[in-house]
């Protein structure tokens, strides 16, 4: 961010990240209404980016999310590079994939072990779980730390990574610095395989949905930051066509916009979508890990997303090792990118799903328009659709247990509110069915 700072107040943003609220209305035995309210920071940042030079965008975008700053940086950088016709060195591209590996390891480990697993094992939180599953939690600590080491090494500092830039990196690591990660990553690969086996021992409710899965697909690799956007129902588009096919709807009950596929409705992004659409691109070690626990395409039970995330940790560890072993530093850390007018679009795969960015720049390289559509807002309608079906099974349950089950269903999506959904405010309204309600 530049030295120039401004104070901007937007009342709807004066809420701590992580607040979420769920409202379900039951009429008799029927679910009449489901409203999930979540908080969405990108709207503020879109305005904040206007008037800034494109070189500032990656650092500003990284501040949107403390859990996945790399995804925001990568989508911003790719969109701007596409607008300006920038060609990067292949070694830089590989380093960006490594960067993404680190973030996936960190984010998925946090979610699988600390946020989602307690639900399946019947604990109120990870602290209670740790009393009985100390070795498991210790494994999570070490795994997450390894992801953090990758991010810190490439990002240049502890929080808010600043090294990634339009055109490359401000500084790239030496071969030796990357080699120092190998021993830890070899352990992490084994630990991730154990993670897959461990998640397979959990009990899953019998709940399958008919999803339209949407994810990137690349001809040669499991997707991080490149590829066409595809679905299991025929979607196959470039990032530049995204806004022709997806539309964001204002809904009264939430600050977040609901993203839907034009004429088709809700869709699902994230690990299950990537896995179902790109299983053949996973390295053999990850494919075998899935086969060993009978996790086969298509996975349509959202509760099994915890297993898919575990498989993606295997992928991220294996991919990180491959990149590090083959690494040769680029001749230049980054190419110079001259100011020019243009519009660029990019989609990358954040841990919780596709993250769309669009930027328009003037001839001085100043941003005149920015659009950011995060995965959580894309999944929000899909979460409500899941809950509508799932809550119908919980009609007879005591309110507290029904609440907990719904929270677990929301955590299937690892939304940005997932850290706080243990404190999610649930309103369960019951009414007699007199035939007058919709």
């Amino acid at each position, binding site marked *: 961010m530049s030295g120039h700072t401004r104070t901007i107040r937007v009342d709807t943003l004066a809420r701590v990240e992580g607040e979420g609220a769920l409202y379900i209305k039951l009429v008799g035995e029927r679910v009449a209404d489901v409203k999930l309210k979540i908080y969405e920071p990108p709207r503020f940042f879109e305005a904040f980016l206007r008037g800034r030079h494109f070189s500032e965008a990656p650092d500003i975008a990284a501040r949107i999310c403390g859990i996945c700053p790399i995804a925001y940086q990568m989508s911003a950088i790719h969109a701007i590079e596409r607008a300006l016709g920038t060609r990067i060195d292949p070694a830089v591209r590989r380093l960006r994939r490594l960067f993404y590996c680190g973030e996936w390891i960190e984010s998925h480990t946090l979610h699988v072990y600390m946020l989602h697993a307690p639900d399946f094992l019947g604990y109120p939180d990870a602290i209670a779980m740790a009393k009985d599953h100390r070795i498991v*939690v210790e494994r999570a600590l070490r795994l997450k730390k390894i992801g953090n080491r990758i991010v810190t090494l490439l990002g240049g500092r502890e929080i808010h990574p600043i090294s990634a830039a339009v055109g490359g990196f401000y500084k790239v690591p030496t071969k030796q610095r990357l080699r120092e990660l190998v021993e830890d990553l070899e352990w992490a690969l084994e630990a991730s395989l154990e993670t897959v086996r461990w998640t397979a021992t959990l009990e899953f409710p019998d709940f399958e949905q008919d999803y339209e899965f949407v994810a990137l697909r690349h001809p040669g690799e499991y997707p991080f930051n490149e590829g066409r956007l595809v679905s299991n129902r025929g979607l196959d588009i470039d990032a530049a066509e995204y806004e022709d096919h997806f539309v964001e709807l204002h809904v009264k009950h939430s600050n977040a916009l609901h993203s839907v596929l034009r004429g088709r409705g809700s869709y699902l992004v994230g690990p299950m979508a990537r896995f179902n659409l790109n299983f053949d691109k996973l390295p053999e070690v990850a494919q075998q890990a899935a086969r060993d626990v009978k996790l086969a395409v298509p996975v349509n039970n959202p509760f099994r997303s915890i297993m898919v995330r575990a498989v993606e940790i295997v992928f991220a560890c294996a991919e990180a090792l491959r990149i590090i072993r083959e690494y040769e530093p680029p001749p230049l850390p980054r190419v110079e990118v001259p100011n020019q007018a243009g519009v660029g679009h990019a989609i990358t795969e954040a841990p919780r799903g596709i993250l769309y960015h669009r930027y328009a720049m003037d001839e001085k390289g100043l941003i005149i328009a920015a659009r950011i559509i995060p995965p959580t807002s894309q999944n929000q309608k899909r979460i409500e659709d899941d809950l509508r079906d799932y809550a119908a099974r919980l009609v007879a349950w005591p309110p507290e247990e029904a609440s907990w089950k719904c929270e677990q269903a929301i955590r299937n999506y690892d939304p940005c509110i997932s850290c706080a959904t243990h404190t999610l405010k649930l309103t369960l309204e019951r009414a007699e069915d007199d035939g007058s309600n919709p």
Partner: protein
Amino acid sequence: MRIICCGNPARGDDGAGTLVAQQLRDFGIEAEICFGEALELIEAWTGANDVIVVDSVETGAALGTVWRWDGRKASFPTDHSASTHGLGLSAAVQLARVLGRLPERLQIYGIEGRRFEYGTEVSPELKLAVEQVVRELAKRTSSHWGARLDVL
């Protein structure tokens, strides 16, 4: 002694901890910065016996109030951390206690904040609190790092 400062400088008063770290570093005192996510915090203090954590908190007290808690004692108000993530400092302390990974000495400085929205700067009242914490920590740690106390 290890000093760990938590916070997000893009989130108003949540940036107080990172300001403390920056000012300590200006005096030649080592201070780590982290978001305050629980697992990250436990890793950050692993291997140290004497740990100080600085974070912004929201207890309802006057803006800029500086709290000092013994993190090893139950008196630490575990539900008042203003961390921007659900598993924050209080969860780190509780989890570390379960895992036997609390440091021998854990001093927590809480700086009372009020505004945690995106894009705002740290409240002016907090800047005084930040300076107060920096002065205290510099005095406590001067024997470790030879802080330039003459400038305090």
